């Protein structure tokens, strides 16, 4: 097939697929369908450590305690202690590694809770509930006060105990 013949085949194809693939080289499939960021909004739930991506809403430890008792306690235990699953706080006198004491950014707690919890019904918590639960977990670990409000502005500012402990191994040396 000459170049001219190939173009004759390709041009109607490109036109049929719309404008999005016109920039593709002719030897590439170009079969990805263009989509807008707005149409990906429900999927795009990742949150950066700087708070980028945090939704509107807010919550306090007191509000979180109520939700925790309803939706989390069955696995994580009363007040986040002594459950069948990961302890989210320490019993008096203990200093084990909990999520809040270990992770370097409070945004991680929000992100994980929103995407993965509660285990049987992930992604069903309202944003206010996720803020409240995050606040509750932080307060149970004495990282924030009992009346502190967590929202898109305050959450990234929380001074996590381990924030300076992490050292990146990337880029790796071979």
């Amino acid at each position, binding site marked *: 097939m000459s170049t001219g013949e190939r173009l004759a085949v390709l041009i109607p194809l490109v036109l049929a697929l719309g404008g999005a693939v016109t920039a593709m080289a002719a030897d590439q499939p170009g079969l990805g369908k263009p*989509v807008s960021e707005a149409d990906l909004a429900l999927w795009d739930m990742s949150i950066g450590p700087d708070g980028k991506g945090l939704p509107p809403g807010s919550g306090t430890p007191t509000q979180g305690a109520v939700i925790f008792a309803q939706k989390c306690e069955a696995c994580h235990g009363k007040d986040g202690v002594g459950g069948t699953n990961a302890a989210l706080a320490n019993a008096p006198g203990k200093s084990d590694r909990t999520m809040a004491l270990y992770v370097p950014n409070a945004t991680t707690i929000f992100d994980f809770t929103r995407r*993965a919890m509660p285990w049987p019904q992930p992604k069903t918590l309202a944003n206010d509930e996720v803020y409240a639960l995050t606040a509750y977990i932080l307060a149970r670990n004495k990282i924030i006060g009992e009346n502190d409000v967590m929202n898109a502005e305050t959450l990234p500012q929380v001074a996590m105990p381990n924030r300076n402990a992490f050292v990146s191994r990337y880029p790796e040396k071979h």
Partner: protein
Amino acid sequence: MTNKHERLASPMPDVAANGLIDRRALLGRGILFVGAVGTGVGTSLNCAAAEPLAVDPWSMIPGVPIPAYGVPAKYEGKVIRTLTNPNNEPRTSQARTPHHLLDGTITPNGLHFVVARTGFPDIDPSKHRLAIHGLVKQPLVFDLEALARYPKVTRINFVECGGNSAQLYSKDPVQANVQAIHGLLSCSEWTGVRLSTLLDEAGIDPKAKWLLAEGADGPSMNRSIPIAKALDDAMIALYQNGERINPAQGYPMRLLVPGYEGNMNVKWLHRIKLIEEPVMAINETMQYTYQVSGPKIWQFFFPMEVKSFVTHPSPGLTLKGPGFYEISGLAYSGNGRIAKVVVSADGGKTWGQAALDAPVLSKALTRFRMPWRWDGQPVVLQSRAWDEAGNVQPTRADMFVERGEPRGNAGMGHMNVITSWAIDNKGEVKHVYG
């Protein structure tokens, strides 16, 4: 060049203590059986004569109908994964590969190891979508039909959980078999589309240094991955050992980042977002970080470093009396090809070089083999590997100098020290620290 008669008359010399034989004995020339040659009565060094052979019943009837999808022989029912959460309770499930019951280097799909935060999602392939967005010129969505038309590549790569072999951090040797200790490791032939092809189509914004890869599973497992790795050898894998990816391995598609810790090979992949900095996901902060001396916590520790272990013999595979055995095992490195494996039968005092099954592939399991004549006395078997980048598998002493003794339940990953199996005079194999 020696003639056949001379070879038969000259057994290969031992290359290390306690009966390790030069690996050239594996070349199939019959040199080990010098005592049996020419006697004409079928007796060799250790074996009584065989019974006369009768015609077997299965040789006298028609066979069983051929099934549409073949499964292993019914006598192989013990060759299965061990499960930590068979009832799918609300916690992580692990399924471990039985390396002591397999040989070669490719893991059958049904025996590939699994770590899953819940079970596997039941994904309708016709509805599954892969989105690529973030720091790109044009966000794009792909379905399976579209991806099927892209140029594909096939590669053999291992996948190993970052927490595999964590039992070796224990102060005392855990009494467990190779499946329990090293079973979060498998190797497959993967076929799929290069990630770079799809990223090029979306158009990478030069500000993008990382990407977020996320699964379509309930917990939406996600990891940050360097763009450099994505452009180097990452793949959107669609096939595993020739068939569509197993549901527990990410059906209908997974990310494959060869040599990097297993958790980064995101299963049920449905979203890739190009970003400037890592998102600090739960699986790169709470999990898959490693507490070391300092105290500091290593993060973004990606390649699984050079490692080997003996699978045959190993705990549970009791030796049936003195005589010839083949020692074999697996070696691999997330930094390239295996360059050399040595084996010891005296706890690391003397070593002999093992034979490597060809082809030796980058970031793939390599099978090593070493002929051995066991004299029936207690021995300690070990293996040690080097990769082509010059990295050597560490001893326990080396590892703990660098990492410090592990504390609490942290620091339990990227464990690649030498494994030691002690064999007593009854042929029983136990895990020890050499």
